[in-house]
């Protein structure tokens, strides 16, 4: 641990400090959106969106290297595909009420497959593991700017519409009867989830997005009595997992993404066991 703190103050380790800043700031959005995702029970939607992001990254690489649009960073492709996936999933779940899970499952796999096909047709070799499993140490200043923008949007949205969002998540039918456009709020929530997922992909990778989105909120849910308490606790746990994950992965030379997830998973398991023991007494 001391080794990690020393490394942070080393001027050569700019990348480590950047990773810590991004992880800490991103925890704000992760905790808030994660709480919505857990209480609204849409974590599998977030999973589908994250795998569609791979399609966008593949398309981005293709456009950049084959089509020749140098400025088109794969992250643009990621953002576009995430929003597109959110809109498709939202439309399906709002209007075609049956077989929603089938559509989501199909989208999940198709997103992944199109990404691989794009990469097949793109000249050059790309190491996809940083996208699949995340590499917080590759994070750039652009990511830091993205995190700040997302935080402002997510926090603003939540503070401004807290009561309406609570009503929509708790009982969307009743919310509609109170004159709230529940469908629009649901769509907006899915789009914000999509943007958060893009950031999560940078930190823990496509495959592990759901874990860092839902585990902090699930742990928080064991203690929180109200939604805003759940959000604050989820932010705290998300920061805690990111910090300890980074420290452990640096000290033992492990991949950062999986380390963060395993720590989060262990804490969740311990909390579940303890609450179970307390309840049975």
């Amino acid at each position, binding site marked *: 641990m001391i080794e990690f703190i020393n490394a942070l103050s080393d001027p050569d380790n700019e990348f480590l400090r950047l990773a810590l800043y991004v992880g800490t700031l991103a925890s704000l959005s992760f905790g808030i959106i994660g709480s919505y995702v857990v*209480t609204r029970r849409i974590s599998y939607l977030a999973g589908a969106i994250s795998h569609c992001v791979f399609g966008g990254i593949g398309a981005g690489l293709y456009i950049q290297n084959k089509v020749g649009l140098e400025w088109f960073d794969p992250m643009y492709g990621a953002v576009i595909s995430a929003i597109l996936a959110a809109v498709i999933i939202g439309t399906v779940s709002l209007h075609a009420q049956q077989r929603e899970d089938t559509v989501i499952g199909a989208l999940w796999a198709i997103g992944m497959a199109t990404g691989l096909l794009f990469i097949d047709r793109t000249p050059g070799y790309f190491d996809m593991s940083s996208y699949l499993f995340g590499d917080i140490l590759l994070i750039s200043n652009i990511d830091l700017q993205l995190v700040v923008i997302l935080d402002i949007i997510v926090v603003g949205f939540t503070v401004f519409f807290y*009561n309406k969002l609570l009503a929509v998540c708790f*009982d969307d039918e*009743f919310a*509609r*009867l109170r*004159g709230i456009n529940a469908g629009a709020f649901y769509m907006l929530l899915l789009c914000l989830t999509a943007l958060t997922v893009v950031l999560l992909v940078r930190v823990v990778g496509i495959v592990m997005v759901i874990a860092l989105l839902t585990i902090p909120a699930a742990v928080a849910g064991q203690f929180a009595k*109200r*939604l805003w308490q*759940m959000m604050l606790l989820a932010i705290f746990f998300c920061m805690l997992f990111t910090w300890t994950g980074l420290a452990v992965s640096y000290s033992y030379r492990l991949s950062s993404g999986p380390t963060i997830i395993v720590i989060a998973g262990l804490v969740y398991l311990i909390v579940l066991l303890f609450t179970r023991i307390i309840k049975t007494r």
Partner: protein
Amino acid sequence: MSVSNDIVLNNISFAYASAKPILEDVNLIVKHGEFASIVGPNGSGKTTLLKLFLGLIKPNTGEILVFGDTPENSRLKIGYMPQYAHLDMQFPVTVMDVVLMGRLGLNRGSRFFKNDRIAAMSALEEVKMTDFAKHLFNELSGGQRQRVLIARALCCEPELLLLDEPMSNIDPEIEEALFEILQGLNKRMTILLVSHDLGFVSQKVNSVICVNRCVVVHPTSEINGTIIKDIYGGDICMIRHDHRCGEEGHQHD
């Protein structure tokens, strides 16, 4: 169209996609100040009827007027208590949070003010749940939850109260107390409640709306064994014309 009619249904038919009709050629008038129970066997269209009143679903044919306007435009005047089965029982909300949701739509923004909290507390007082304001909603018993959802509906300051099976999972003595509360509320608003128990309900309410694909209204005094048997016995409804029915009365086969 008289102003004193809260709900008017003209020749309403409704079917969920690719299924046989749930409601067929329904004519119904609910007068202001009525306290009626909607009864009928499972799957007969009781909840469907409520959802039509609320504009949550649209009829295939026919016309619905609620307070002389479309159901969508009249929604804010209706207090609705759904069955709580569809709610997530792990959701982190307190009783107060739930009741305050009834205040949405009365304010312009998304914030609650002191008067909202006062209204929520008095709604809780009406269902005798003030002591539970700070409790978690998911720690309550079934009957307590139902009372909280009634308080949420009252918080909307409605002129019409629609209650979907408010008496299910409730002990008889609490049911009795709940009916007394509703009788008190009936002085200020029209109340329609869906019930699975015809015998008991008929002692308190003014009239009974029988639903089984078709809809027939009976004043409480007319309810007898034959009618109950008809409602639960087969798919043929009792044909009985009274002043509430449409001009031609009902046609059944």
